[in-house]
């Protein structure tokens, strides 16, 4: 059974890959900015709810919500990377092991 903290990490990784995927798709199909912003809002809320993260404000100029969300996810990613560096097993490996 996967530990709760590993699940959080796996979720963070998934969100981290989902956000740029949406950015790519929105760009390819030239989606209206409102749709992209709303998607970022939804994804951000889900991310924060599942990972108990407080919302963060983007400090940059002309910051689109989806870009801000990736920044937010990146910070979680950095925590994960630091944890990995200290010998913590990659939670994705745990998922694969269980599968």
């Amino acid at each position, binding site marked *: 059974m996967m530990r709760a903290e590993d699940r959080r990490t796996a979720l963070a990784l998934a969100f981290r890959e989902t956000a740029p995927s949406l*950015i790519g798709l929105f*760009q390819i199909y030239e989606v209206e900015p409102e749709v992209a912003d709303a998607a970022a809002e939804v994804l951000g809320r889900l991310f924060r709810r599942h990972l108990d993260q407080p919302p963060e404000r983007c400090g940059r100029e002309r910051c689109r919500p989806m870009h801000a969300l990736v920044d937010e996810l990146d910070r979680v990613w950095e925590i994960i990377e630091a944890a990995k560096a200290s010998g913590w097993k990659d939670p994705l490996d745990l998922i694969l092991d269980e599968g």
Partner: protein
Amino acid sequence: MSSSFRRILRSPRREARSPEHAALFEEARGRHPALARHHTVLSVLGVLSGERRSAYAEKEALTRALVAEHQRGEGSFWASVLLVAYYPMLSRLRHRIYGDALCADDLDQLVLASFLSVVAEFPLDRFRDRTALRLRQQTERRVFAAVRAEQREQELVHRAEPEDLERGAERPWPETRPEPGGAPASPEEAADIVVFLVEHAGPVLDAESFELVTATLVCGRRIPRYLERAHPDLDPEERKRLYQRVKRRHSRLLRRLRPALAHLRCPRTEADGLCLFGGTSPTKESTK
């Protein structure tokens, strides 16, 4: 008057006045009657800086002697003497150049280097009069030709897309697709491309960069069009500034991406863009 230009000439001035070159000057006196009348190089410089019209013939002879000595190629002493002697002319020329094609220091260097190259190549046998006038004209021509060439190049760089500039030097990969509007043909293909980019480029790109390279590499959109959509409210001036920033960032991104994707390069034509265009799964190809 540019203080930097004056500063650059401090060193030649010191060298020209230095007593350690007295022997060189002494030897040259034996070769040129015009110099023989002078006991030191300072005396020569004094005549050359004078305003007397009656001294024209003497100035001409002295200039030719200095040029001939410089062309013998014995150290930098004679170059320094010539630079000091012609400082007023060079300074006037330097300060006739306007525009931002070159920075001030580069302009200073350009003027000095052009003058010295003209002096080094000046055909004393062919031109036997009006040496100072010819030196000035030829230096001006070289300087203005170099400035115009730089302006033309900057104009091209300013107008060109960064990927076009890079294409001139090499055949980089990946690059913006040559045909604009080349979005993927189906949702599956779009998904393939996005997964490919997320997998291989995602870890090295932030969100804005990811969006930018999707627009240019995947869809073949030009940066101005991308910015029009991304920032429709910008005024033209602000858009111009942003375009310059984004253009530079895009070039840097491509430089960062190439090593990350190099192992995935496959023998397709440039019109195919990334390797997976045509339906092959990039993930499968990359793991072969």
